[in-house]
């Protein structure tokens, strides 16, 4: 490993936030650096930083300009970001049940047709993947995953749907996703999970964290109904396996 890493770009996001950009593209190495900086700031907070938001390729750092100015903060951030990455720690791994196809995954057949294969094969490729939570955003708990099998990369729908159900498991472009709340989406819907990545009065409220590993496994629709009721009552459902 190099002694120091190339510096990220500091992009002003107004007077109270700065975007620390490691890459312009989706790139696991850049995402690891984002999460490493995020962790370093959590472990040794810089006075004035109020909140950090990791994304695929950048860390958005909110701060109070009454406490620290752009230049002083930027220097500190660059110093931390140029340090070699700490050795990888054990990631949490979530095994997430998915009811594929039918009413729960209305695009499964079309995706199979578009890729010249069978729905079962699409399910096997999707459930066979080893994913990483790259970021959470858009709506509470919406987990963006990297690691989608290349054979499943396909452009988003021409016209986004205004409504897609809670728990939707979908793919879009080179990404896979776990959606928690009902929301508009232009992604292809493969199935639904009873798992709530966000549930207000549950401990923990948010299940997934950026950096977590994720795998999926198929369940039948009857199991989905049972687990959905249990999840509604506050059960986590997802199986945690520490990698």
């Amino acid at each position, binding site marked *: 490993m190099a002694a120091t890493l190339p510096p990220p770009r500091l992009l002003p996001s107004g*007077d109270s936030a700065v975007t620390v950009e490691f890459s312009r593209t*989706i790139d696991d190495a850049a995402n690891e650096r984002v999460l490493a900086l995020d962790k370093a700031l959590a472990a040794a907070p810089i006075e004035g930083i109020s909140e950090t938001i990791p994304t695929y390729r950048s860390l958005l750092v909110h701060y109070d300009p009454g406490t620290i100015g*752009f230049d002083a903060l930027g220097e500190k951030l660059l110093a931390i970001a140029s340090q070699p990455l700490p050795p990888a720690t054990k990631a949490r791994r979530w095994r997430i049940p998915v009811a594929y196809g039918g009413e729960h995954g209305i695009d499964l057949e079309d995706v199979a047709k578009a890729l010249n294969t069978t729905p079962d094969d699409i399910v096997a490729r999707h459930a066979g993947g080893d994913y990483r939570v790259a970021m959470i955003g858009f709506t509470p708990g919406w987990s963006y995953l990297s690691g989608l099998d290349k054979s499943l990369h396909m452009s988003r729908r021409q016209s986004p749907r205004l409504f897609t159900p809670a728990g939707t498991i979908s793919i879009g472009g080179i990404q896979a996703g776990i959606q928690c709340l009902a929301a508009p989406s232009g992604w292809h819907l493969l199935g639904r999970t009873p798992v709530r990545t966000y549930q207000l009065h549950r401990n923990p409220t948010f299940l997934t964290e950026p950096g977590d590993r994720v795998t999926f496994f198929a369940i039948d629709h009857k199991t989905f109904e049972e687990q959905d009721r249990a999840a509604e009552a506050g059960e986590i459902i997802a199986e945690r396996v520490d990698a």
Partner: protein
Amino acid sequence: MSRLVVASIGPASSVQDGGRYGAQRYGLTVSGAMDRLALSAANTLVGNQPFAAVVEIGPFGATFTAKDGAVRVAIAGAPRNADIAGRPVAMDTSVTLKDGETLTLGFARGGAFTYLAIEGAIKGELVFGSLAVNARAGLGSPYPRPLQAGDEFTVNAASGAPELRIELPKPLAGPIRVVLGPQDDEFDDANKALFLDSEWKISATSDRMGYRLEGPAIKHLHGHNIVSDGTVNGSIQVPGNGAPIALMMDRGTSGGYPKIATVITADVGRLAQTSAGMAFRFKAVTMAEAQDEARKFQQLIRTLPDRLRSSDTVELNIEALSDANVAGYAVSAMDAGTWQVTAEP
């Protein structure tokens, strides 16, 4: 305890406060008042913390009735005609509604959002430290949705404290100030200049999530798709059609369009209060200037209590009175107890 009943209210009105910060990393929208200065001024008038929960009233009118006792309130923000049984109530003042009395607020005469603070503040169940309504996520308390007629708040009985007005600095005129970035390098110099030198209007389809800007189409250098990254209040993103959108308090926490510029903290509330259809411009300022303005804005909010005055000393505001008359309220200065008027205007 008294109650304050929402007797009537228009759309785009909800309980808001300083916002829900700390969980943007999980996709949780911040919400909160669109005009932080007006929020703080209204709260300061009734002795609340500056970012306590208030009623944010959209551009249409509203009426509030006190029940089971008196309720002390204050109004600040977008100016509108206000009265209690024909007695005018001035903007930026506190007033006590006696049991059974109704405060009537007209349409906003400029801007969009008026803040009704209640002495002792609105009470409810905090979610991530905030009562602010985020209708999309079903969050907010006591009502996790826009307000409707018949909603009510259980509030402190009025303290009987003397009524106050607050002397706010004269609202700034002139351009909305921005800092370029974070993705201004996704635009060439001609398109950056087009953004900064053009007149813009806020589209009527704007809401708390974003203000759509009408003006020339801004073209991207490399297309409109970037890898999603974080957003802030006042991020100005440019989607594929070239019509910029200024992201406001109900914005998604991340977005995938290039952001050409960011409205400075001190001007987010000014943009929020810019009426749909009114022409305005942007002006780029340096980071040093923006941060200086942000610190002054913080200082202004911190020192609002120093700007409180007895409302007995209120001077006749000819303009407001004339506006009220023009609007058909036929205010009689001689009858207007709260105006302390001894001569006809």
